[in-house]
């Protein structure tokens, strides 16, 4: 993948509706052929940002460049983008073929060219048999395929996806997710994908931008976001079940709280240094060792089991550590039950420390 040239470049983007600031001073560079996922809870501005890139919303300040061209005030059709909407937004009165060729007819593409592009897109998406049907006669998954096809035939540089899988059931979502990934590997187009589903984000993205209140919290590879979240919000947002947080303080090399004292000498501190003070310790449930495995861990503690949730492949345990909630994950074969006491172990190297006031990672 060539990421030296940037495909989409967002520079100091501002958007406000009256006095309500939706996006503030956003800077994102998206490389050629990159798959960028905008991830965040609802109302964080991710769809708004996508609409700005598409040209469906007028920005209040800043610039958007696509392929090195300033398109900030261009019409959507002149930006070289294709867009896939959450509600599919197929034209109900047209057949699938009509839906796919509508944009090309608008652009006055030659008939034979339209024919061949529609054929190619239909092959890629395996909807050849559906070409003469109306959208009402299609299932949700088929409709979304057609919606993707409509973006595909336009032969554009940048694909925008606005929560394309949110209206589908879990099984279909998983299979279409793989198809989108395969499509990206096949086409090498730049794709910007908005979702609130972290599994989609983790599986699809080259890079993820986690958004909150109209600002990007962290922009990085899925691995970076997962293992070294820059702040408490990102840490809590990524991972399911979410991270355990214990408040305490840092004194020298030790994290000290009412219930535990951990030596943090193996912890990879961030560049900002390790000043002492009030901190929070974050521990991912899946990084907690249990029973026998716990004995090898640098820190061990006994936990009461409150609720056990078997999920098949593994089991989530909601325990408590002297009144503080403590979630962890054990093997699906585990025989833990409510009321048990179990020894758990934590490796400080895999934990996260956050400053209590700034909420930034230490």
């Amino acid at each position, binding site marked *: 993948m060539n990421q030296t040239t940037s495909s989409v470049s967002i520079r100091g983007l501002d958007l406000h509706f009256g006095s309500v600031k939706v996006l503030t001073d956003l800077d994102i560079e998206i490389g050629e052929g990159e798959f960028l996922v905008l991830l965040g809870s609802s109302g964080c501005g991710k769809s708004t940002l996508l609409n700005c890139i598409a040209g469906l919303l007028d920005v209040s300040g800043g610039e958007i460049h696509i392929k090195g061209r300033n398109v900030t005030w261009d019409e959507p059709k002149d930006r070289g983008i294709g867009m896939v909407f959450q509600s599919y937004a197929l*034209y109900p009165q047209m057949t699938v073929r009509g839906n796919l060729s509508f944009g090309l007819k608008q652009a006055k593409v030659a008939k034979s060219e339209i024919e061949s592009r529609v054929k190619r897109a239909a092959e890629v998406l395996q909807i050849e048999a559906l070409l003469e049907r109306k959208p009402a006669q299609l299932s949700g998954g088929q409709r979304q395929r057609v919606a993707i096809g409509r973006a595909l035939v336009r032969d554009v540089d940048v694909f925008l996806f606005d929560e394309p899988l949110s209206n589908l059931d879990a099984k279909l979502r998983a299979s279409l997710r793989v198809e989108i990934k395969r499509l990206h590997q096949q086409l090498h187009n730049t794709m910007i994908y908005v979702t609130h589903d972290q599994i989609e984000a983790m599986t699809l993205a080259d890079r993820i931008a986690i958004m909150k209140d109209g600002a990007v919290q962290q922009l990085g590879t899925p691995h970076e976001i997962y293992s070294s979240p820059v702040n408490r919000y990102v840490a809590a947002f990524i991972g399911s079940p979410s991270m355990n947080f214990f408040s305490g303080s840092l004194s020298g090399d030790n994290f000290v709280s009412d219930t535990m004292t951990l030596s943090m000498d193996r912890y990879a501190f961030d560049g900002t240094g390790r000043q002492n003070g009030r901190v929070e310790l974050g521990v991912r449930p899946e990084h907690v060792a249990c029973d026998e495995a716990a004995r090898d861990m640098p820190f061990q503690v006994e936990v009461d089991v409150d609720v056990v949730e078997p999920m098949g492949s593994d089991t989530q345990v909601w325990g408590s550590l002297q009144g503080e909630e403590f979630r962890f994950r054990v093997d699906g074969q585990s025989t833990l039950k409510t009321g048990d006491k179990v020894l758990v172990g934590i490796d400080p190297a895999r934990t996260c420390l956050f400053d209590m006031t700034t909420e930034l990672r230490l």
Partner: protein
Amino acid sequence: MSHESATQHRSTPLLIATSAFIFIWLIVAAFPFFWTMWGSFKIQADFFSKSDWSNAVTGVNTTARYGHAFTGVAYEGAWVQQDFWRAAVNSLIVTVSVVVISLTFGTLGGYALARSTARYAFALLIVALIFRAMPHITLVSGYLLPFFKLNIWGYLPTAIIVLVAINQPFTLWMLRSFFMNVPRELDESALVDGCTRGQAFCYVIMPVMWPGVITTGLFSFLLAYNDFAVTATILNQHNQTMVPKIASFLGTTQTEGNVMFAVASVVSATAPLFVLVLVFQRNIVSGLTAGAVKG
């Protein structure tokens, strides 16, 4: 399937009771119209007989005068002698114009109001609603003096303008709610696909809107077609539409036979409505439900 078995399980007395109710209701509802239609082929001495009401059914006097129980003399009198055809043409001009003008502004305005995020959009709708809630006659009385001064009183275009003014708030509301049910993503999708706003409206939004346009158009048609308050006060004798013309027949009952002109014209004026509703019934039903239930 389940529907059929459900009806089978329903008890016979209940079935009889409901059928009887519907039958009676149908007669009560339809009787006045059929009575009028039947009577329109009689003469006044039969249909308005003071001695025996059954004359209206048997047509004794009609047979005595014309040798047959049915006669078209009332229709001939109304349409030919009394120039009811001119009123019919006027009605056609007025209703078609009102429908076309209301729908043109209604679709454009309704679309704009449905898509607008501006705060004044809703305020406009509320003002429109208040305007619609006023009795038509209050508007007419306000218009009369300026119309006299401008010397435009009595002409068809004047009545058309007033009727559009009365009807426009309703079409705006109705069409706006239809447009609200067309997802915004459809517009956006068309914009991305290379349309301008105008093309998106024409090629993508309007084709989906036909049920709404037809339903709204039909209600507009009925308002213009059935209007009395505006047409009776604004139009002069020569330019009268059907409804005030019928009223003027009724107002001159001293002359023998005039009331029968009214009866014949009422039947003539009602017939097109039946045809219209029958032709568009599918669209009306789907339009009404599409407006009411969010897809």
